[in-house]
């Protein structure tokens, strides 16, 4: 799986933010304590577990948004290093939210990882084509999710 993540990152036109890059350059392994992740999901149960996983277990600084509009406003204000974005949401879904973020100069380069229960090959390819730097499947393992995110961010920083 890791080689797929690296490959996705290599093909991405996006780069990690300068702050994240500095963290990488200063450490052989990514110093996640400096990195901030915005988790966007309309399901409060998923937000709760993702916050526990990435924040308490992974050591990231975690911000939460319940929908696309809230995510766009929060991203423009807080400039997270990565956005973990649910695909299936009411009102503004994940793909619409990605397009909106790409249309705003302040947020256009923030790496986006899709978060979805629909992980068929075709769906993953569709999300990849939209410019996502990775796809994380639901259900997710709370212990494994931080490692997945670190892998994606490290690959982005290298390339």
């Amino acid at each position: 799986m890791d080689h797929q993540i690296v490959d996705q990152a290599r093909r991405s036109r996006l780069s990690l933010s300068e702050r994240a890059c500095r963290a990488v350059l200063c450490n052989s392994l990514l110093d996640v304590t400096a990195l901030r992740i915005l988790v966007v999901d309309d399901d409060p149960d998923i937000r709760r577990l993702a916050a526990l996983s990435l924040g308490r277990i992974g050591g990231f600084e975690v911000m939460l948004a319940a929908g696309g509009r809230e995510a766009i406003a929060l991203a423009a204000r807080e400039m997270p290093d990565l956005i973990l974005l649910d695909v299936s949401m009411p009102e503004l879904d994940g793909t619409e939210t990605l397009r909106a973020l790409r249309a705003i100069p302040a947020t256009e380069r923030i790496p986006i990882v899709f978060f979805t229960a629909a992980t068929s090959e075709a769906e993953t390819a569709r999300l990849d084509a939209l410019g996502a730097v990775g796809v994380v499947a639901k259900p997710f393992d709370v212990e494994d999710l931080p490692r997945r995110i670190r892998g994606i961010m490290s690959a982005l920083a290298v390339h």
Partner: protein
Amino acid sequence: MGEARDPEIDALLAAARVDFAGRLPAKVAEIEVLVIREDWQGARLAAHKLRGSAATYGFAVVGTTTAALEEELLLAAVSAPDANARARIAELSRKARAAADLAVTGPP
């Protein structure tokens, strides 16, 4: 959900799981209400959401049952389900309800 190294994190995860389990029957009931109303798309979205969250919280049977239910509801949302499809939806709803009830009363 794996072995957490920090006891405080273990406690937080356990509390989240108990809280989620207690609300599982209501989540399945929400799907059942939407099915009764023949709101197939609404029911599909609710099943989709529960599919992901239940399995993530460690309730695998609820997750797999609602995944199967979501597939049936996806077809129902495209074209009105016939009697056989309605029977499958009813049976999967019943299984999801049973699994949710077991999550509340069963072992952690």
